[in-house]
Each structure stands twice: as C-alpha cells, then as structure tokens.
C-alpha cells in the first residue's frame, strides 16, 4: 500500500494539486484534505501544507489559516512526531501556528520573486534532506512576495546552535536573515521552506531537484505509518514504476527519475 500523504487545502491554496501530483508520481497516496476537516485521513503518514495565498493573506500571510479546524489535527500529528512539510504559504502558516520558528515578511525590495534559485543543503541528516548530501546545491524555483524570513539575533543564534537551519539561498534572494530558505523544528519532524519542490520534479520541465526532498518525505511517510503498510502484503509494490523512480533518486541531483 503506498504511504498516505495529506495535502491540506485552504481557501486560496493554489499549489495543492501540483503537490499531490508530484507526491503521487513519487509513489505516495496523496489525499487533498479540506481545511474544515477536524481529522486527517486514517493512516496518514505525512502532511503537506501547500503554497498559495490562504485567506487572501489577510492580516499577515498564514495568520488566519493557523486557526482552521484541520490545524488542530496537524498540531497533534506533529507533536506525535509525524512528518510535516510546509511549502511557501505552508511555511508561513507553520510559522504563524508556532510549529516553526521565525516569521515570513514582505521581501526586502518589495518585489515578487519568481525564478529558479540555487540552494545549499545545510543538513543532510533530516528526514527531508536525507537523499541529499551536506553542502549539496539544489536548484528549485521560488515565487513569493513575502518570503523574507526573520528571526531576531537571539533566536537566530539559538537556531544555528541547534542546527535547525536546513536550507539556505546560495545568494541573497529576498532579504532573509542568514539567507535562510528552510528551517525545521527542534525535533526535526517539521520543515518549512519557501522554494517549491513540487515545481521541480520532472526533467521535462527543466528541473527535478525538488524530487529529492519530496521522495524523502514519501519515505518518511512510509516509516511513520508502518501499520498501514504491514497490513498489505504488497507493501512497497503498489506503484512499481514511481517507487522505482523515487528509489533511483539518490542525491546526485541529476534530475533523472520521473521520466524513466
């Protein structure tokens, strides 16, 4: 049975379908979950908060979504160690919900940044980056107006000391403190990043480095919900081509995989 990944949908989410498409191509059973739900689907192994403009970015981006029904379920899931990935607006929501440190602010130059950016993997020992190597460069697109991650000096020093900075822009992108592109929580099971891995999973579209992160998430989902996998004797065989493709993706960043 393919591992189940819940992709949340808020009013104004717009990368939910792309995220689900990419996750399915990488062997996951991706389910779209409406924000009004009180529970995640049974046997959910990972949660993705997708990009978009939930609630029109009213008040502060991500601020309104944090009080959606489904966020209580996400909080429980995260507290039990479940893997949670927030992409772009999903990152903003996780920060506002207090599940990740810092906050995303309007880009320093007030420009909407929409292009491929080079990232550096600061830690390859998280569940999200374990298909990468330390210091590896990934090319993944960003598209945001409010991606300037901020933490005050004290908080930033704490996060560096506890190795919670997972991804950095190779060069300044939006004015983020420390060029931070992605941070995780203290336990390492919640990651937020501004770049969009779901837009970089197929070499036909130019880039596939994002598949390194998403395939690792699918692995994590499989490990987090072993009961559901064990219940089915065809464990791991559900989608041979996609699973095989995901397994073929091992840190070389060469972007083969999905087209195979």
């Amino acid at each position: 049975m393919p591992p189940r990944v819940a992709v949340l949908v808020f009013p104004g989410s717009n990368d939910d379908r792309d995220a689900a498409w990419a996750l399915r191509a990488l062997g996951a059973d991706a389910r779209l979950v409406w924000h009004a739900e009180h529970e995640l689907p049974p046997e959910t192994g990972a949660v993705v908060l997708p990009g978009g403009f939930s609630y029109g970015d009213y008040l502060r981006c991500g601020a309104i979504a944090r009080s959606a029904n489904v966020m209580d379920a996400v909080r429980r899931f995260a507290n039990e160690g479940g893997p949670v990935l927030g992409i772009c607006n999903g990152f903003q929501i996780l920060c506002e919900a207090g599940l990740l440190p810092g906050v995303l602010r309007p880009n320093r130059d007030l420009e909407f940044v929409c292009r491929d950016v080079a990232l550096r993997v600061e830690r390859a020992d998280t569940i999200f980056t374990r298909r990468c190597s330390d210091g590896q460069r990934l090319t993944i697109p960003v598209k945001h107006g409010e991606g300037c991650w901020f933490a005050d000096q004290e908080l930033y020093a704490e996060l560096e000391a506890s190795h919670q900075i997972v991804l950095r822009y190779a060069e300044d992108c939006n004015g983020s403190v420390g060029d931070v592109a992605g941070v995780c929580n203290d336990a390492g099971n919640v990651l937020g990043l501004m770049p969009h891995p779901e837009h970089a999973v197929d070499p036909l579209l130019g880039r596939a480095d994002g598949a390194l992160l998403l395939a690792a998430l699918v692995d994590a989902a499989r490990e987090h919900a072993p009961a559901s996998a064990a219940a089915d004797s065809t464990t791991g065989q559900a989608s041979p081509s996609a699973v095989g493709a995901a397994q073929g993706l091992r840190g070389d960043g060469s972007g083969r995989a999905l087209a195979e």
Partner: protein
Amino acid sequence: MLVRPKAGILDPQGEAVGGSLRKLGFAVGGARVGRLIDLEVEAASAEDARTQVERMCQELLANPLIESVEIEVQE
C-alpha cells in the same frame, strides 16, 4: 489598536512610501506603515476590555517577533 513594525525592524513598505513622498517633493525623513484595527468588545470594564484585546493580540492580531501594539479603549 495600533499594530506597528517594531523599532529596528526593516519596514520595506514604509521605505517605499517615504521614497514616493520624497519623489513628490515632500521633505519626509522616515516613514513606517502599521495597521489600525477597530474592535467592538463586550466587557465589564475598560480594564477587562483591554485584557481581552491583549489576549487577541497574542493569539492572532499581532506577531510579537516583529510587531508592537498600542491599545486604546473607548467606552
């Protein structure tokens, strides 16, 4: 209540507004842009109303990492 970018926090919106005013010929030094929120609250006293609004600020209306808040209560 008034929500403002904290002192020392870069305010790109304020900088854009200041720059635009200077372009129009106004002698403006700095500009900071915040947000005004009017709330109607049922409360036993002004103090009670203030306490309620402070809690709202903590939970939703402001982000203490980057914003400062001033509350004014009118009966």
